[in-house]
């Protein structure tokens, strides 16, 4: 029975040996026997009942995935890779920001403050793309059982989304507003925070959020919607990249596949920017609701990951030897 075989394979990939033996094997064994004893249409009913019981058992047992201990060496390697990548990319991104304002170079404290406040913004831009290298640190480790690898990747995805949500939702807007306040010359009025400088909570509770949105026109309510969608998309990006790289590494190895993380990361960055730009164009061309175009990058990466997942399932056949060889 293909469904039960797949279910058992799924459970073995995600759960430890004891949970599989105690929970999933008895469930699947009873399911198989019930299916064998049934006939005709009843088999379909048995399949549906078995599948729903299996999904339910997976959902109830899923906290054990988060509780699966990940070897310290892997956690350390993941953290090191993310830190190194973010430092390099955020540092590089900060250079033009800092060089763009020549006058402040005369004012050392202001320059230091700007560097401090530019870094969170640069970090939010770099962090999601660090996931590609981070997944390599988890998956390219032969000594770790598959369920531990998956638990590590899942934890990485959850933690990364939380970090990103905090960064784009609170830290980056706060840093941006702090910079605007700090750089206002003495005697001038401190600028009021724009939507980009408001936290997610402030945006959600914005009094103008409930006003009517006119597709194709940028009303205040539409701008708030766009800003909220933008931050939501940025928050889920790390999890999408974890999935993307995970499925890439799941495919059978060939000469040029999977691409090394150093190569795949810039490709992912380019695809992201292209999808973002295309979404923006489509939104304008088709007069869609504000922010709708921002959904294009997650759609593109989901399709990419799904395609890789499908390819990973197909057995790879080596080219056959020529006749008579």
């Amino acid at each position, binding site marked *: 029975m293909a469904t039960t075989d797949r279910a058992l394979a799924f459970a073995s990939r995600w759960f430890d040996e004891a949970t599989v033996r105690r*929970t999933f094997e*008895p469930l*699947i*064994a*009873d*399911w198989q*026997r019930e299916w064998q004893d049934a006939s005709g249409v009843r088999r379909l009913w048995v399949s549906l009942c078995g599948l729903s019981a299996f999904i339910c*058992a997976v959902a*109830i047992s899923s906290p054990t995935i988060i509780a699966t201990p990940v070897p310290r060496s892997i956690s350390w390697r993941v953290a090191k890779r993310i830190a190194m990548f973010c430092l390099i990319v955020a540092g590089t991104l900060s250079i033009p920001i800092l060089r763009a304002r020549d006058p402040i170079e005369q004012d050392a404290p202001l320059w230091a403050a700007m560097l401090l406040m530019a870094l969170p913004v640069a970090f939010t831009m770099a962090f999601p793309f660090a996931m590609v290298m981070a997944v390599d640190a988890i998956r390219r480790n032969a000594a770790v059982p598959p369920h531990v690898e998956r638990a590590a990747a899942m934890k990485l995805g959850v933690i990364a989304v939380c970090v990103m949500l905090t960064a784009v939702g609170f830290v980056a807007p706060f840093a941006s507003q702090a910079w605007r306040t700090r750089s206002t010359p003495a005697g001038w009025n401190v600028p009021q925070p724009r939507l980009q400088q408001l936290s997610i909570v402030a945006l959600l509770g914005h009094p103008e959020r409930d006003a009517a949105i006119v597709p194709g026109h940028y009303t205040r309510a539409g701008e708030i919607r766009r800003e909220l969608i933008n931050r939501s998309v940025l928050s889920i990006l790390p999890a999408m990249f974890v999935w993307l790289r995970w499925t890439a590494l799941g495919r059978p190895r060939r000469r040029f596949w999977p691409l090394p993380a150093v190569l795949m990361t810039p490709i992912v960055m380019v695809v992201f920017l292209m999808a973002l730009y295309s979404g923006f164009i489509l939104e304008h061309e088709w007069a869609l609701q504000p922010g709708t175009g921002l959904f294009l990058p997650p759609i593109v990466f989901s399709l990419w990951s799904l395609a890789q997942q499908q390819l990973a399932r197909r057995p790879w056949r080596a080219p056959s030897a020529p006749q008579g060889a």
Partner: protein
Amino acid sequence: MSDLPKFSGTERRIVELLMAHEEMFGLQMVEVSGGRLKRGTVYVTLGRMQEKGYLESRQEPLPEGAIGLPRRLYRATGLAMRILAAWKAAEAHYLSGVHPQEA
């Protein structure tokens, strides 16, 4: 009091069933319970009860011509039976205290 082993309603129902039927499969318990045990949760509970030492299990030898995984038969341990007896006694005592006129 903190040393008293935890015993949920589902666990109690399972032990009661196993005391009445000696050995059962997971799916059999669901059918016999008349909807009180759910198929999606019973195996997780059975697994946890085994971990706690309330149940022991063995694999059923595969019948002739059967394919797939061998099914697992469960049996309540002495520990589970003692805990059930203790809970029943505690329950009777509690109820007699709460409703003295009914006792």
